[in-house]
């Protein structure tokens, strides 16, 4: 059935919501701009003076014209001591009509050196490539490990090389386009990839550079002899293609991907020409309140996201705090689970579990739209088996094998985050709206709980309760939780794949659905669908 919107886009509430969202987006945009700045104007200029392209220029040249590029986790390392962005750009782009995961170092940030956040970002990109069967193109120019952080980096970084070759073993091709430094451990990126293209007089691929070789063996050797493109193309054979310059390297990279004869294994969209939503996605900015305690109807979001605003709702009259049903996005059929009115009760736990089983039965990907404060607490609900009912949903989501996509629109608190396929439940993609908050519970609730526990503890010990200190402590904890549950904080830690403009939700989900379609879409089988 076609969804009907009941919000008033000319009303004061809409205007206020929109204003708040625009402010959040502006703050986000400012952080993204910092990430795009890379190491700053001076380093960018120096890079250009060397005749080299900037990271995002390389990507723009690599991807097919007029196709999309979905950048992942642009605010990685936000709020840490490291440069926002994590000195690497990752994302999904279309190269020679093949969706690929692109991993591109930003050499203007500390020479492209890798820190623990770069590592997480790269490993996440490789995981996306593996789950969704997307070929990987590495755009390499990195000084290797950021040495002061080697303690947090060196041991886990080995996974990069393991993942690359395991991807290859899974039949997922890997390509390294080497534009500059790729030394020491970094030499194993072209080393472990299926294809390596090296740029003449720019690529440097060796285990030890001239000083190290001199120290180790006393031998005098220069960069070109140890790891230049000419040497590797003509002597060692590490380089499969010799590129004259950066554009030539990208040209060869595109040619390599074209020759992969790549085929996606998913069922594909039902139509290549889907109907647009009947409501303007622009209005999504007016749907969500800046105050997460104000609930909103997720059908208002769906009306602006799914094809033709058509939504076949399942069990609309039962467990109505969780909206479930079938729709399609960019022609891909999806099952949707969306929170309404925040709390998940016993019925919602059971309804969610049942719906997940139904989607598995018909091999349909699931989209989770989060805005939940968690499962209900209280005598009545505990006695009705709230733990068991929540567990049913968590069980179902954990063992579901269709692709899951999560969008955290507002709150995602407590076990609700788990049941709705939070990060720990391995959604294929997880995106966050800029006003979202993720935590064990809301800041006020958490501070209040701590306060009650402290008060009970004081009473039990017969100590006087310091009201002033409690008030001060509550506001301190509230501020801490507020900060730590902030979308920027979560995205900085790679707890999502990036913050998105709510108006982009349809496009982002469309790209994600196209990406997950790279792998077969197969639901879990074994039991019939339990009627709960």
């Amino acid at each position: 059935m076609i969804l009907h919107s009941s919000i008033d886009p000319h009303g004061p509430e809409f205007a206020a919501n929109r204003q708040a969202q625009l402010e959040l987006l502006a703050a986000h945009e400012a952080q993204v701009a910092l990430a795009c700045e890379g190491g700053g104007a001076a380093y960018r200029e120096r890079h250009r003076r060397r005749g080299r392209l900037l990271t995002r220029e390389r990507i723009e040249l690599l991807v097919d014209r007029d196709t999309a590029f979905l950048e992942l986790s642009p605010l990685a390392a936000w709020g840490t001591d490291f440069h926002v962005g994590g000195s690497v750009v990752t994302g999904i782009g279309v190269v020679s009509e093949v969706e690929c995961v692109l991993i591109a170092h930003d050499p203007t940030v500390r020479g492209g050196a890798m820190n623990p956040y770069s590592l997480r970002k790269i490993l996440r990109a490789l995981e996306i490539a593996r789950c969704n069967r997307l070929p990987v193109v590495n755009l390499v120019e990195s000084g290797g490990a950021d040495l002061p952080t080697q303690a947090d980096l060196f041991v886990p970084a080995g996974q990069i090389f393991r993942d690359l070759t395991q991807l290859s073993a899974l039949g997922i091709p890997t390509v390294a386009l080497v534009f500059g430094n790729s030394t020491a451990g970094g030499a194993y990126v072209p080393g472990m990839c299926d294809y390596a293209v090296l740029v003449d007089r720019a690529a440097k691929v060796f285990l030890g550079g001239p000083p190290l070789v001199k120290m180790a063996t006393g031998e005098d050797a220069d960069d070109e002899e140890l790891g230049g493109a000419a040497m590797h193309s003509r002597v060692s054979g590490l380089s499969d293609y010799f590129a004259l310059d950066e554009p030539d390297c990208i040209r060869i990279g595109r040619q390599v991907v074209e020759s992969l004869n790549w085929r996606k294994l998913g069922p594909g969209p039902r139509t290549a020409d889907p109907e647009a939503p009947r409501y303007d996605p622009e209005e999504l900015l007016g749907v969500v309140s800046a105050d997460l305690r104000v609930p909103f109807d997720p059908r208002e979001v769906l009306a602006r996201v799914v094809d033709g605003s058509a939504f076949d709702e399942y069990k609309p009259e039962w467990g109505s705090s969780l909206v479930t049903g079938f729709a399609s996005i960019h022609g891909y059929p999806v099952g949707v689970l969306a929170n309404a009115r925040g709390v998940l009760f016993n019925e919602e736990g059971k309804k969610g579990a049942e719906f997940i089983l139904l989607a598995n039965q018909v091999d349909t990907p699931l989209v989770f739209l989060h805005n939940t404060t968690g499962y209900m607490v209280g005598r009545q609900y505990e006695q009705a088996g709230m733990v068991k009912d929540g567990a049913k949903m968590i069980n179902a989501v954990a063992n579901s094998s269709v692709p899951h996509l999560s969008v955290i629109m507002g709150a995602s608190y407590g076990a609700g985050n788990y049941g709705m396929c939070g990060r720990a439940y391995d959604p294929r993609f997880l995106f966050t709206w800029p006003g979202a908050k993720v935590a064990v519970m809301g800041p006020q609730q958490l501070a209040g709980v701590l306060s009650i526990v402290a008060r009970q503890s004081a009473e039990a010990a017969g100590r006087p309760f310091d009201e002033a200190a409690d008030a001060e402590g509550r506001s301190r904890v509230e501020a801490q939780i507020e900060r730590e549950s902030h979308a920027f904080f979560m995205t900085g830690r790679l707890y999502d794949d990036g913050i998105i403009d709510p108006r982009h939700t349809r496009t982002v989900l469309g790209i994600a659905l196209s990406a997950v379609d790279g792998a077969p879409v197969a639901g879990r089988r074994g039991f019939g669908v339990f009627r709960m």
Partner: protein
Amino acid sequence: MSGAGGRAVTPITKLLVANRGEIARRVVHTARRLSIPTVAVHSDADAGAPHVREADEAVRLPGVSAAETYLDIDRMLGAALATGATAVHPGYGFLSENAAFARACEDAGLVFIGPPSAAIEAMASKVAAKQRMAAAGVPVLESAEVDSAEEVATAGRRLGWPLLVKAAFGGGGRGMRVVASAAEAAAAFEAARGEAVSAFGDGTLFVERFVVSPRHVEVQVFGDHHGTVVHLFERECSIQRRYQKIIEECPSPAVDESLREALGKAAVAAAAAIGYVGAGTVEFVLDRDGQFFFLEVNTRLQVEHPVTEAVTGLDLVALQLAVAAGEPLPPEARTAELRGHAIEARLYAEDVAAGFLPVSGTVERFEVPAGLDLRVDRGVEAGSVVSTYYDAMLAKVIARAPTRALAARRLSDALRRARLHGVTTNRDLLVGVLEHPEFLEGRTDTGFLDRHDPAALSHRPAAGVRRLHAAAAVLAASAARLGSRTVQPAVPPGWRNVGEGWQSTVLADTDGPIEVAHRYAGPGRAGTAGEGFAGPATAAPVEVTVEVTVEGERLVGRVPAATPDEVVLERDGVAHRVVVAWYGSEAWVDGPLGASRFTEVPRFAEPGPAVAAGSLLAPMPGSVARVLAAPGDRVSEGQVLVVLEAMKMEHSVRSPRAGTLDQVLVSPGAQVEAGAVLAVVGAASGGGPDGDGEAE
């Protein structure tokens, strides 16, 4: 001028058209109208040409060169006899003024659509022709045969400078030199004699007074076998480049009623003097004072005959056929009247800016508006290959109107609106001439294109229109890409969640490179709203929200529609509809403000086998006339090593540097494309190979 007697009428039952291109089609067209079956002939290069399809039967003339096909008398007769044709129409050019062919037809019992062989012979020698005309009372320029440079100087003193030295058996500007003074006599004589010998096999030269700022005015005459000779008014063909007419009209703006009568009388006298039968043209040179002098008689249907047809309403080919069959000229031919004004423009495949270099290639699209007062005689269609073997004329466009001004406007408008893709044409020059104030005032003389630089005269879209066209070309290419997406077909084009996503395309035309940047906009991008552009740009036009900058300057406000072949650009509140066609990396853009042609500069240069330093490249397509050095020869910079011939012109290809001739890759007679490597000259120092690696 009705004579006694006359020939019995023998109807033509089947007509062989001994020609190709537009004139073959034009003859077939009339024959069809008269229910006369037709036979086409074709070389191997023309096997698929329109004239072959349109005739009832076709005979292959094996080979491609004109000499082994359209000029081969035996094969042509063989074709006529094999198909049972009773008459042969030679068109113009090729065998049309070949007396031997006319006689061979007569001997074989075929009706030759043209004058008797004796009349052709009588006019073949210009000196002899002039003497006969002078005797018949036709005004002629005094001239003299010359056997030496001294005789040229003597003639100059007698007739006055400047003089024109001409080959007696020449035409088309070959073997012709203007001599300004006695000092130039020797060089001009030698040059003219050399060309005359090589081109016509006869070095006979003569000189005559050279008329300054002359007009070329010719009179159409018609004679029948019953002794009637009439004239069908004059045509002016003064707009010429390299002695070839490109714009012709009827009537001449320089001819008034009394002059017309005098010209007509002289022309009829000239034709009668040689017993002329059929269609002929008596050419005169008209000076500034209205004095005219006989030049020559063309014993064939002229290229520009349609302007006469347009103003008289006659079908000259039908008249030719009737006369050849022995019928008397019909009353409408004897009492023809001038009605209105007609102008013809000849579209050539040629590069005006490069000195009218003929151009070869495939015609991708050939659409010229036609209608009641617009006639298009064309030999090519989309898919036709223009080769260097034959004349590079693609079509003639003829406009008719009550007034000369309207005819000129109608013609230039039709040319502007024509969609001519695939090969470079002289269209811009034609438009430039037709819209030039001097032309519109009727101040046309044969020096028009000497006074006005043809390249500068060529109508080019204004800089702003060029930018608009470049933007349209890029958006059409983008729409084509979007419509054929195989992955993420429903994702908004060029979508980015980070960064601006500008895409740069570099196009190039004769004015140099032009960079167009575009990006599609959507929600969450500055200054835009709505996802209305989402979805593939398939056949249905989609309103696109797109920002375009050309050379860094923001150009387009709105794009109401963009498809692979049509783009509507709105600029300052005015919508411009532009049609675009891409053929490989070439974009041809047409709009009401003119036409543009761009080549896309590849995003990635293919480092293919680069041309070795010291290579001689063919500057144009053509055939190799001579190779003037052998491998191993020491050559100097600028030394002519290869001579190419293309379209009656010889082009010298010179050594780019001093050194040793390493390789000669062609031999005389070889056909070469533009840019082909002809020879390679090694460096003088004898060092290693040049340009290793990146420099190339």
